[in-house]
């Protein structure tokens, strides 16, 4: 703990918490957002818009259930379309939350304590959005439970040699572990809210959620062990999840997919887009709720550096893809590269390079790394770029089949767009509710960052 604090007062860097805070002020400031601060008009407008978009998504999905996947733009040869593009995009965004909460915990990066809670919430909501897509893409969504190995009257089992079933296990494990990790992180803070709340209903609800937490030294000891072990389990898990997602492509023989660079490059891309989403959420939240003391310039800088590093790994991935297209000598691989550069979707490929490789290089400039507005805009660009990357991978690879007779084009319909934009609404609506109902910053972990938390011998 003490050495953590020492690193935070490094003169070179902005502090993790602005000086002058005590256990009391940290507790009050964070819990007040939930307990006493009235919901502003801005919150109602924001939540209202997000809620309407969620309704639009439900409408689009309802119509899909009525009519079938024919209302979408998917046709042979492009059977995957928006559903898979959006699935990969969302699940990638979720990865930053686990990286922040688990991997940075193991690496003793204590600055993560101010952003891990809402980053984990982001993970959960992003995984929830991601989970919708494969479920509604299967054609007969009411039979989606066939994905799981259950003793059916047909007597058959899932085909375990397929990456698609690996994905079912990876994503459902990821969702379960993320939810549990988030929940145990919340238990001590629920106790704080229980003890601070004045409304009887709030006390009962937070009391139930706190499970009767009383902060006993024995409990803390087991709690910390469990928390650390969960972090140790979540770390390989999060790396495996996007690896398995990339197997969905890489194990297939489609040119543009069948490559061993996919797992690391997918994981880096996931963290890249996830940090962009973290910043797009953190920058307005710290401003609106006055949390600049807790989410400081340091957090913005560090996140920008992570984006810069993972962005370069992604750029390396693109480079290797292009190189292998030439070096493999395989005419289909070479054609895939040519088709990306000159085919009907070439504009999107160039846009992808601009969004993911060129524009983010401005983060080398320190002044822009510390400017919330610039970071917000660059993060938006990266999110668009990462969405385009998945579009390029899914659509460009599929639309030119091995035989020219099976070539086709993919045009998303309004139902595709409504579903996609609707999930963004659902994600934001959940974030709006989360901010008002649960502490957006981990209160007890913030206390450990204060100098007074140190035990002097």
């Amino acid at each position, binding site marked *: 703990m003490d050495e953590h604090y020492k690193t935070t007062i490094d003169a070179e860097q902005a502090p993790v918490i602005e000086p002058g805070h005590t256990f009391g002020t940290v*507790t009050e400031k964070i819990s007040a957002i939930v307990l006493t601060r009235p919901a502003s008009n801005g919150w109602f407008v924001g939540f209202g818009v997000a809620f309407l978009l969620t309704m639009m998504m439900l409408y689009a999905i309802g119509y899909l259930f009525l009519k079938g996947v024919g209302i979408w733009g998917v046709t042979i040869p492009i059977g995957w379309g928006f559903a898979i593009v959006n699935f990969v995009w969302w699940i990638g965004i979720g990865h930053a939350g686990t990286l922040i909460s688990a991997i940075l915990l193991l690496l003793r990066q204590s600055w993560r304590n101010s952003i891990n809670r809402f980053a984990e919430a982001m993970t959960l909501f992003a995984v929830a959005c991601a989970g919708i897509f494969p479920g509604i893409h299967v054609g007969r969504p009411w039979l989606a439970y066939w994905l799981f190995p259950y003793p059916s009257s047909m007597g058959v089992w899932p085909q375990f*040699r397929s*990456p698609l079933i690996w994905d079912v296990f*990876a994503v459902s494990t990821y969702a*379960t572990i993320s939810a549990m990790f988030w929940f145990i992180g919340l238990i001590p803070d629920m106790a704080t809210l229980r003890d601070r709340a004045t409304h009887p209903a709030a006390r009962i609800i937070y009391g139930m959620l706190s499970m009767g937490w*009383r902060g006993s030294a*024995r409990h803390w000891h087991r709690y910390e062990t469990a928390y650390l072990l969960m972090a140790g389990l979540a770390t390989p*898990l999060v790396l495996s999840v996007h690896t398995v997602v990339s197997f969905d492509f890489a194990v297939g023989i489609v040119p543009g997919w069948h490559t061993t660079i996919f797992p690391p490059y997918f994981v880096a891309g996931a963290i890249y887009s996830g940090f962009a989403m973290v910043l797009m959420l953190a920058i307005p939240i710290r401003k609106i709720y006055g949390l600049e003391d807790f989410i400081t310039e340091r957090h913005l800088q560090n996140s920008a550096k992570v984006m810069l590093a993972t962005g370069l790994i992604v750029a390396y991935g693109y480079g290797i893809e292009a190189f292998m297209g030439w070096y493999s000598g395989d005419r289909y691989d070479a054609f895939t590269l040519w088709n990306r550069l000159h085919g009907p979707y070439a504009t999107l490929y160039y846009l992808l390079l601009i969004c993911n490789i060129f524009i983010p290089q401005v983060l080398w400039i320190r002044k822009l790394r510390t400017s919330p507005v610039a970071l917000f805009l660059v993060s938006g660009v990266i999110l668009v770029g990462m969405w385009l990357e998945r579009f390029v991978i899914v659509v460009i690879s599929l639309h030119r089949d091995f035989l020219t007779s099976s070539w086709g084009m993919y045009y998303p319909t309004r139902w595709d767009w409504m579903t996609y934009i609707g999930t963004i609404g659902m994600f934001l609506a959940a974030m709006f509710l989360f901010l008002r109902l649960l502490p957006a910053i981990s209160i007890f972990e913030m206390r450990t960052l204060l100098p007074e938390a140190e035990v002097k011998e």
Partner: protein
Amino acid sequence: MKAERMYGIMAEFDSATALVEAARKTHQAGYNKIDAYSPFPIEGLAEEIGFHRDEVPLVVLIGGLVGGLTGYLMQYWMSAVDYPLNIGGKPYHSWPAFIVITFEMTILFAGISAVFGMLALNGLPMPYHPVFNVPRFSSASKDRFFLIVFSSDPKYDAAGTRSFLQGLEPRSISEVPS
């Protein structure tokens, strides 16, 4: 009658340092049934009150092993025993393809064991506990530190323990009714 119905005596401290020191002295004075409460985890505090056996890692290890075995054997039995299907000429027991799900099941079971094992060993959820009867205890989740000597301790005696705790210079002392 009052003394019999007490759950323990509780002392309140201002800082983590004071709590650790008080816990050490109390334990050294021969009190074994004691507990300490703090608003955040304090390294070494559990050891000071005589807590050394943390079974959470063992529970997680067992959970992980069970998960991994379940994952692998499930796939083996379903693909090679119960309904063997020839998929592209691959062997029924294609173990490399089974590794991913084996790994995921290991993580899943280990994680569930960590969370539920920790809660069970801590005796949670427990919505009611006698310490909540002390009004000042509500700051244990904010900025105060508490030490309790349970009345079940063989060395416990209402007046003696109270004056012992008084000697540790706490901010306040409360009796905890059971």
